């Protein structure tokens, strides 16, 4: 019986742990995917070239029900840097770091309000400029040149290496486009379906803006998540089956060991229903205690997995604990069916004379 209890507890531990991980994967992996950049863009609607900062703020506020990693507004304009035309983005660098954690900077991020600029790696190489050097920046042919310190070089492996980036407020002032942005990048922890819903909600609520999903990321995220969930589900099913076999085998051994006792009880007048109730009852009690033990250990197991894989803790889910206990009871109940059938077939006359 101790072995059966252990089998149920181990099974329930893995099942409870796996279900917890299964449930947590979308959220945890969703967070991991946020490292690959924004998954939703807010662009100006038709016949508009910019958004107002107020619009971006309102949209951001309307997403308070979702887990928002960051909202980074950008203003893009082609500026002359050391007489070279370079597409320059004005950005809120604090937010930008949240939305684009994959950017690698040689040097430092520009400081807010300071005449500092971040150059894309390609442009910096082309102009042979290193962090700490200065560049002359002008907004057009007739505009006055301003001196900026190159605080850092940005490496992304993407087209950002052909850009330059400076403080959003400074660029807005240079271009006399106060409170205007070209787009906003939003990084939100959500799967493809939720993102579609968010996009739809924004379109309906703000008809003057055009939300756009970054489909490669959303699609990859969905593919990886569904594969991971399928794997976890498969492992859970295998464990469930193994637990069933292990408990059934142990219960069969228990019935074989107790054949004489079963025979005696039948000789004393026990009906088959009494024997069925006793063994199923024992199985269910076994399932309950194994399930309780497994639910607790399963949470610790899931916590361990989450800490090691995702680096985050997960909350205890009472519904999963209850489900694991009920599932353990059902599994031991099913596993007891064949042994119970054997028990009801015991002939008292035969076993009591020692055959």
């Amino acid at each position, binding site marked *: 019986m101790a072995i059966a209890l252990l089998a149920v507890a181990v099974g329930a531990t893995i099942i409870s742990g796996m279900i917890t991980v299964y449930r947590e994967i979308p959220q945890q992996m969703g967070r991991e995917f946020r490292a690959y950049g924004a998954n939703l863009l807010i662009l100006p609607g038709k016949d508009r070239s910019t958004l107002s900062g107020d619009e971006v703020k309102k949209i951001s506020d309307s997403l308070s029900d979702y887990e928002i990693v960051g909202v980074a507004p950008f203003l893009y304009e082609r500026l002359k840097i050391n007489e070279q035309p370079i597409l320059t983005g004005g950005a809120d660098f604090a937010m930008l770091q949240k939305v684009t954690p994959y950017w690698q900077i040689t040097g430092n991020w520009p400081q807010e309000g300071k005449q500092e600029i971040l150059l894309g790696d390609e442009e910096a190489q082309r102009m042979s400029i290193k962090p700490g050097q200065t560049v002359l920046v002008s907004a057009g042919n007739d505009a006055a040149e301003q001196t900026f310190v190159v605080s850092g070089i940005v490496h992304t492996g993407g087209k950002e290496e052909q850009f330059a980036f400076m403080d959003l407020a400074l660029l807005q002032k240079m271009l006399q486009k106060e409170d205007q942005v070209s787009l906003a990048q939003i990084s939100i922890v959500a799967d493809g379906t939720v993102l579609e819903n968010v996009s739809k909600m924004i379109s309906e609520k703000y008809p003057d803006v055009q939300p756009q999903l970054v489909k490669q990321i959303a699609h990859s995220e969905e593919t990886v998540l569904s594969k991971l969930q399928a794997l976890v589900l498969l492992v859970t099913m295998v464990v469930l089956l193994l637990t069933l076999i292990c408990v059934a085998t142990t219960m069969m051994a228990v019935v074989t060991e107790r054949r004489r006792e079963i025979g005696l009880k039948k*000789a*004393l*007048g026990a009906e088959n229903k009494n024997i069925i109730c006793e063994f199923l009852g024992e199985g269910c009690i076994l399932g309950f205690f194994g399930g309780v033990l497994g639910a607790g250990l399963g949470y610790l197991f899931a916590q361990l997995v989450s800490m090691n894989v995702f680096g985050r803790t997960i909350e205890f889910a009472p519904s999963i604990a209850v489900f694991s206990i009920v599932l353990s009871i059902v599994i031991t109940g099913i596993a007891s069916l064949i042994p119970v059938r054997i028990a009801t077939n015991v002939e008292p006359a035969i076993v*009591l004379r020692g055959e």
Partner: protein
Amino acid sequence: MSLLELKDVSMAYGGKVFALQDINMTVEKGEWLAIMGPSGSGKTTLMNIIGCMDKATSGTVILDGIDLTDVTHQQLTTMRRDKIGMVFQQFHLIPYLTAVENIMVAQYYHSLPDKKEALAALDRVGLEDRANHLPSQLSGGEQQRVCIARALINYPVLILADEPTGNLDEANERLVMKIFHELHDEGHTILTVTHAPEVGREAQREIIIEHGRIANSEV
């Protein structure tokens, strides 16, 4: 009417090998009968049929007015529970239950466990002070007395004892036989199956079985 009546009872395995053949016998209420015979003679088969643990392949068995010929498995179980008290050579006590709990098991399947009554049954066989001992803490004689107390607890119409002294020393054998005498004096109907002549002689009447047939004519 006799408490037990067997008419032309036979038991054949595979339709050919006869363990019992044409057994005719009666047991009256309050009688003590011994069924004797060597090993393999068919006395245990006979006891299983009388004890409602097996059914004869032919013939009629009537116990306490109920014909067992066409009863179902379920009805046989009910007969065992309500009419028979079994005493086994090997005692067959449940090892993880105390003496009193072993008696209460029989009560549980019959009606409701009543500890007070179970203790009284133990007292009846002189073992009230051993009520909370496990079978492993009891001697063979004490275990057999617990077994007798268990057989008596549901007021059976027939006490069936299979080699009740087969595993006991002489002193305990005397003690157990004394209890059987007391039970008989109280009016219980007892049927003992034994191969030991000295145990068989304690009964009022003996039936000797040989090769599946009744060998003596005093039946």
